[in-house]
């Protein structure tokens, strides 16, 4: 599973998420498909500006755009977000194991703490 993570795409996903407008677009799309006009609604932004953000999201694989005639709805593709979650999961496991070892090492460094606590 971990081996399937694509580093380039992961970096692209991080970059795509590094913008509040794009995150808002993703949050909207999490509720269901929408076209550019609908996505632009809540923003004080021109359609071309919104389209530009959509292109970044598309390149990162986070958004897919149907070619269906005029309407061209956008949909969210959560797969790249799952890769970030996978990265975070691996990272967490490594740290947890390290801290277990830190705990063991600390008790070796200061053995009196573990044995000297019961004399009251």
């Amino acid at each position: 599973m971990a081996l399937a993570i694509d580093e380039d795409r992961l970096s692209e996903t991080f970059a795509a998420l590094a913008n509040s407008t794009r995150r808002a677009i993703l949050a909207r799309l999490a509720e269901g498909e929408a076209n550019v006009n609908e996505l632009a609604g809540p923003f004080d932004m021109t359609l071309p500006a919104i389209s530009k953000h959509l292109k970044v999201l598309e390149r990162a694989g986070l958004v897919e755009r149907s070619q269906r005639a005029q309407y061209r709805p956008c949909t969210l593709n959560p797969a790249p977000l799952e890769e970030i979650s996978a990265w975070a999961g691996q990272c967490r496991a490594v740290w947890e194991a390290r801290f277990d070892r830190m705990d063991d090492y600390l008790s070796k460094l200061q053995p009196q703490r573990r044995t000297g606590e019961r004399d009251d």
Partner: protein
Amino acid sequence: MTDGNTSHDAVVIERSFDAPADLIWQMWTKPEHFKVWYGPDGAAVPVAKMDVRVGGSRLVCLEMDTPGGPMQMWFTGEYREVVENQRLIYTESMSDENGNVISPPDMGMPGGHPATTEVRIELEDLGGRTKMVLTHTGIAAGSPGAAGWAMALSKLAAHVEAQAAR
């Protein structure tokens, strides 16, 4: 730079240790201690150079045994914040043995890993015990949008989980 959003970051781990804060600080800042616990299972840490001051650099080598012989991985970075016994922030990137940054794919690294990450350690003295909070984010502070990228994760988490469960 504290925006109260730490719980939205990629990896946040809170632990309490039965040791005073100054000893936990040494775990992170003294190579002889750091080398003991840092390596993942089956790995050794033959090199840990640490110039622990703001702007100072770090260089860490992990060495693991593989069927093809020992494999070394090097990581470099820079200290961003150093408040003794309280707060340590550093960046981390894969590098060669001289600390020249190398992108993870060029290293032949199998698992996914963002190019530069930031590690933040916060210590709180609980009177002999210490609470430690580690925050590891996939993008370095100071990068555009660093504060908020992970918020997308929390907002979309439910959706992602629903998709993954299908």
